[in-house]
């Protein structure tokens, strides 16, 4: 108790612009047992088959541009924004489970990999300076856990006021159990600085901040050395942050570094800020050199892990394959395999799901019994730790009652689903899950409203069309009636008209009003002749 007081006091004492503070959040221990901190990255062998899901960031199903039986090479476009992660033959495009909490299946391109070592050959020609098009062509996605299309991020910022003011390189790990970025920094600091420099050149930003936690000493030393040897304008500011979870999340990080409050309605690009993960910057640099983004570093950690390790995995490798090759296939009966950490991840029931850009960590932990859920006692522990200044207590009341307006008033859509409130609630209430549900409900209502507006538009168009047609029909009827009233003997005229049209032959019986096969059958689509025809006997 006294030790924590002293530590907090000292931290506040040394808090300076160089170490900006975060309100809320949890000071989590880095899980030393079961966390690989040696900086070694093992390269996983390319598996026999890889399965690439045909979904984008918005979880929409994409149309493939390839077909089964086609031979493809590493880096070939499979669909909009998706490239093949290795060469081989496409053995099928079929629904397959993906690593997602819904456990749903989406169409995936199944590739039987060939043995050619193509990781070392550049697919595209190296560029002198990085361009957004090249980033897009190499299908670079965010490697921080969200998987946003990086090219769109740069484009959005450029569109607003034609400039990127601040570039934030996020080297803060998503959760304490993850060390993939740390391993990358420890092993390839020089390349990383070059990567950041190339992104800085591309964006032409005025300020570049490299944010990292202050307890990653080896990584910091390596980066400092590399920064000293490189000349970049503007200078890359290495900012050390106290390791408070969730500093790795974009919104608290941007607020911590620049003081700007972001909301879902104001993305970073509206303030001229681009925030990318350090591994994404590395992937962008690789794109400049001509290599598409085909793999990522995955941390395999947890209490039930035999050997915690950081591995470089080709996209499409199944998680069971990753665990097998690293010697960590779960043997305990009560293990839970999670993608991501304890707070921001989700469990997997089926391990045959492919690794994608968002799979930053695989943890295998024992299943622990959760305590009983008690009612909320308004102790306010959740509000104390919320990093985006929300009141989870109030949100909980409204969200559980499905009160959209109340939840929105307390900032439901600003929730970043970090899980801090869950971690401290003495009543064991599943707060984050309730908020996720409430946000989903809100999105559904929004979608339904849009669909309703669309339906109403279509209805109005139809009504208008029908009214116009009825008016035209009425007009024609009036005209015909007028014509009719001018004739002396309308019946005789009609009969002669009909006889004039038909040429009855001896073997053909007089036709009734049976329509010929070629003519269209008119039901309510009005036609000029219909009225005249109807008057025939």
């Amino acid at each position, binding site marked *: 108790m006294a030790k924590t007081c002293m530590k907090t006091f000292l931290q506040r004492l040394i808090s300076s612009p160089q170490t900006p503070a975060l309100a809320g959040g949890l000071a989590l221990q880095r899980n030393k047992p079961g966390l690989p901190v040696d900086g070694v990255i093992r390269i996983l062998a390319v598996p026999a088959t890889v399965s690439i899901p045909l979904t984008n960031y918005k979880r929409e*199903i994409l149309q493939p541009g390839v077909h089964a039986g086609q031979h493809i090479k590493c880096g070939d476009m499979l669909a909009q924004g998706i490239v093949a992660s290795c060469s081989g033959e496409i053995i099928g495009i079929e629904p397959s489970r993906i690593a997602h909490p819904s456990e749903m299946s989406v169409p995936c391109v199944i590739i039987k990999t060939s043995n050619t070592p193509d990781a070392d050959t550049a697919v595209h020609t190296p560029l002198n300076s990085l361009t957004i098009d090249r980033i897009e062509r190499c299908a670079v996605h965010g490697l921080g856990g969200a998987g946003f299309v990086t090219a769109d991020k740069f484009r959005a910022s450029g569109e607003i006021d034609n400039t990127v003011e601040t570039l934030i390189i996020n080297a803060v790990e998503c959760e304490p159990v993850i060390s993939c970025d740390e391993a990358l920094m420890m092993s390839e600091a020089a390349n990383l600085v070059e990567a950041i420099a190339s992104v800085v050149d591309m964006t032409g930003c005025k300020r570049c901040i490299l944010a990292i936690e202050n307890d990653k000493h080896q990584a910091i030393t390596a980066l400092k050395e590399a920064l000293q040897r490189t000349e970049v304008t503007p200078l890359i500011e290495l900012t050390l942050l106290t390791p408070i979870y969730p500093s790795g999340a974009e919104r608290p990080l941007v607020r911590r570094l620049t003081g700007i409050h972001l909301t879902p309605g104001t993305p970073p690009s509206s303030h001229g800020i681009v925030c990318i993960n350090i591994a994404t910057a590395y992937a962008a640099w690789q794109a400049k050199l001509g290599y598409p983004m085909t793999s990522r570093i995955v941390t395999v950690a947890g209490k039930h892990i035999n050997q915690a390790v950081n591995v470089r995995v080709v996209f499409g490798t199944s998680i069971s394959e990753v665990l097998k090759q690293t010697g960590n296939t779960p043997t305990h009966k009560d293990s839970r395999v999670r993608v991501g950490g304890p707070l921001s991840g989700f469990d997997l029931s089926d391990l045959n799901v492919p690794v994608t850009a968002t799979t930053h960590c695989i943890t295998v932990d024992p299943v622990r019994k959760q305590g009983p859920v008690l009612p909320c006692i308004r102790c306010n522990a959740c509000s104390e730790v919320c990093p985006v200044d929300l009141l989870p207590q109030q949100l909980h009341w409204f969200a559980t009652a499905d009160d959209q*307006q109340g939840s929105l008033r307390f900032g439901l859509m600003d929730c970043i689903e970090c899980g801090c409130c869950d971690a401290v609630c003495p009543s064991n209430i599943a707060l984050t899950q309730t908020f996720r*549900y409430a946000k989903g409900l809100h999105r559904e209502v929004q979608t339904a409203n849009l669909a309703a507006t669309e339906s*109403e538009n279509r209805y109005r168009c139809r009504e208008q069309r029908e009214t116009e047609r009825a008016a035209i029909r009425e007009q024609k009827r009036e005209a015909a009636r007028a014509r009719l009233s001018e004739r002396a003997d309308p019946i005789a005229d009609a009969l002669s008209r009909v006889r004039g049209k038909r040429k009855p032959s001896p073997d053909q019986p007089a036709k009734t009003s049976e329509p010929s096969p070629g003519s269209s059958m008119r039901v309510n689509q009005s036609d000029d002749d219909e009225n005249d025809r109807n008057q025939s006997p």
Partner: protein
Amino acid sequence: MSTGLAVLLFITLIAFIGMALSWLSRPSGDNNDQDTASTDDVGTSSNGESTRNIDQLIETVNEKLPQTQCAQCGYPGCRPYATAIINEDVAINQCPPGGDALIRELATFLGKEALPLNSAFGENKPAQIAIIDEAVCIGCTLCIAACPVDAIVGASRLMHTVISNQCTGCELCLPPCPVDCIDLIEQPVTLSRWQWPKPA
């Protein structure tokens, strides 16, 4: 004498606190309700203004309705029903697709009582879409004419099909079909529509 003064002070104190609190918590300008129509008072004649206000009311009520155009309420579309609610004070519990949520919203907006859904007009079903069995369809275009939102494409003696994301599930296409080839299915949950379930 001092006791009386004390009582007076006490009452004044409580009254002051009460007034201060009620003034501080007066309703503020921000309104999260998207459905509330804005009321501009650009008006020429009083008659014009009242018509405009009524139009705005009808528009607001119409925006709350689910726009399935199914005519289950007894009116040929959602806007006629909205007009009837405002002009003829028709009951607000006649819309089955809107369900109880809609009734509550209308009750709050109009200051009326939130009655339960009138089952004489139908029951509230989950989101559904129509689907045509192409093998059985004979291409008669009767369903195309019946669809209030033009969600069926096709031509005479050619294949008919329902555009799934335009279909409102109003069921108006089922009766006209002479071969009964149209079915109603629950709207399938795709990955993009998946949402987290509510915790127990």
